[in-house]
């Protein structure tokens, strides 16, 4: 029953979203009024390089091949999928002969590290503190935190990151202003290197935890205020169960469950936020790579990053959805 009613439709949806997402990524550059090949040539020329017509024609042919733009759309489309299954996104333009997949592989650990730690930290932190604030919603500290969240919440990732960068990178020079590690340090599992990486990661991570935490705080506080009014809580209070136990075991645990679904729904936004934060701090992950790809007009690299992100995020959402019943005994996919 679980298979037919829930798992199979959910899997169909998963593959359909990936299929459509990647199809869109394939068609956007082809439907757009500007041709990526012409754009690249124009960009090279605008840098002041003189090119004679024969050269230009040779470049057009080479670029058309490189971008996978030769042949009819149907052939290109088939070719695109075949290459995708082999993990081949073509070669990068801005670091010329390097394949896109190598560049992505080098950048990925940074982004995954930053994204995973900050998402978990802000989710746990925001939910627990938000839950406590919701339980004690008449207390002074709860109101102060709520007020603080009202200021942080609406500000976009970019502005928060920039603000922190100016404050702690330039005005008070506490933290390094760019990069993932000091240049010249060889990556190794030494204490000095780990410390260096952590020091570089602090500001980007802090700005993401601050923003993410504020929004989890608010939703969690709201949910807890509602759960608090339910009968079983009153029953527990009348039964003389200790406050701490009621708060953590009875209320916050219950309130955290719907937040798992919310986490799945906001993963796409969190990824976008991480990419933007990386751009501000020149953090050597996918966001920074994307930025270089945009400023040099590197279509293969952009398509590689976007395709990979779509697959990763939809897969993560699927995993969270499927794992959810393990946490919530009330839900059994019958």
């Amino acid at each position: 029953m679980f298979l037919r009613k829930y798992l199979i439709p959910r899997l169909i949806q998963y593959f359909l979203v990936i299929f459509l997402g990647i199809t869109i990524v394939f068609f956007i550059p082809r439907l757009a009024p500007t041709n990526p090949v012409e754009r690249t040539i124009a960009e090279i020329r605008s840098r002041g390089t003189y090119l004679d017509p024969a050269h230009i024609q040779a470049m057009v042919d080479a670029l058309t091949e490189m971008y996978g733009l030769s042949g009819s759309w149907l052939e290109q489309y088939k070719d695109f999928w075949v290459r995708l299954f082999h993990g081949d996104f073509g070669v990068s333009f801005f670091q010329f002969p390097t394949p896109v997949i190598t560049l992505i592989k080098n950048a990925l650990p940074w982004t995954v590290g930053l994204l995973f730690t900050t998402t978990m930290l802000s989710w746990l932190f925001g939910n627990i503190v938000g839950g406590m604030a919701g339980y004690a919603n008449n207390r002074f500290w709860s109101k102060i935190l709520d007020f603080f969240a009202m200021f942080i919440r609406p500000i976009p990732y970019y502005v928060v990151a920039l603000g922190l960068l100016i404050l702690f990178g330039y005005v008070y020079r506490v933290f390094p202003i760019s990069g993932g590690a000091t240049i010249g340090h060889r990556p190794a599992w030494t204490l000095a290197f780990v410390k260096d990486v952590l020091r570089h990661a602090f500001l980007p991570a802090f700005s993401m935890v601050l923003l993410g935490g504020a929004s989890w705080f608010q939703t969690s506080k709201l949910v807890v205020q509602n759960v608090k009014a339910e009968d079983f809580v009153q029953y527990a209070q009348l039964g003389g169960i200790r406050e701490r136990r009621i708060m953590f075991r009875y209320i916050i645990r219950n309130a955290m469950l719907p937040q798992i679904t919310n986490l799945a729904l906001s993963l796409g936004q969190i990824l976008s936020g991480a990419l933007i934060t990386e751009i501000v701090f020149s953090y050597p992950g996918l966001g920074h790579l994307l930025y270089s790809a945009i400023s040099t007009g590197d279509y293969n690299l952009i398509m590689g990053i976007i395709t990979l992100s779509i697959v990763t995020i939809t897969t993560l959402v699927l995993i969270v959805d499927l794992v959810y019943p393990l946490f919530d005994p009330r839900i059994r996919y019958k």
Partner: protein
Amino acid sequence: MAFGSTLRDLFRDYRFVVAFIVLLFLVTLAVMSFFSPYDPTLWYYAPRDLRPSNEHILGTDSRGQDIFWQATFAIRNSLIISLVAGVISRIIAVVVGLVAGYQGGRTDRVLMFISDGFLVIPLFLILVMLAMLIRDKMNIVNTGLLLAVFGWAWDARVLRAQVLSLREREFTKTAVLSGTPTLQLVFKEYMPYITPLAFSTLINNMSWAIGMEMTLSIIGLTNMDIPTLGTNLKWALNYQAILMRRWYWILTPVTLSVLLFIALYWMSVSISEYLDPRTRVQRVGGE
């Protein structure tokens, strides 16, 4: 009458009052741009890198432009972009929400599948890709339209949920049984319930659009000749304003945008709390 008392209730909330005053201030700035003595597209009409003085309230930047007057244009254009994006995406969201909620069945499943897809996929990346390809054609209206295409999915879900609950109400059955045409039912009877909700999501969406425009500008995907909060910031960054410690230049767009985001958010929170009958009771109290 009803409108007046609604406003009076809203003004009971300090957040609404603060948001209203800040927005009024920002809109005044935007209107002042029409009386600007300078053309925002020109460079070097003033000496470069001046400190604030009587002549140039916030000083001038490295492009020889007056920071204050440039900021007034920026707010105006950012507000226009966000209004275009907000209004158009509201229209999409309302239509999708109404049709999905009222029709139900297969139509509902297909529409909700599409909006789920929009929610799951990292939209920012698709937006970046599109913006990159139409970079040459990015004016204020196109930027707004581009953002509108991506900003409706979540709110369509919210509106659909509202319609689903309206459909179960008594008056729907009465209307259907007495032969009211579907369109008339939906537009005449449901709209009064949908409109306030759409309005409160409009404010959130405008805020999102302004932030997104800033992000796209920073990555260099909008037209840098049109002053917006995003391009103002981007120019300051391009000229290393942080490194040169030219705080007036960099902090003007940052401060203005932070004020704008907070004001819009507070207003939307205040309005949606007012719309929710459970929280409205607390505010209006026993009166």
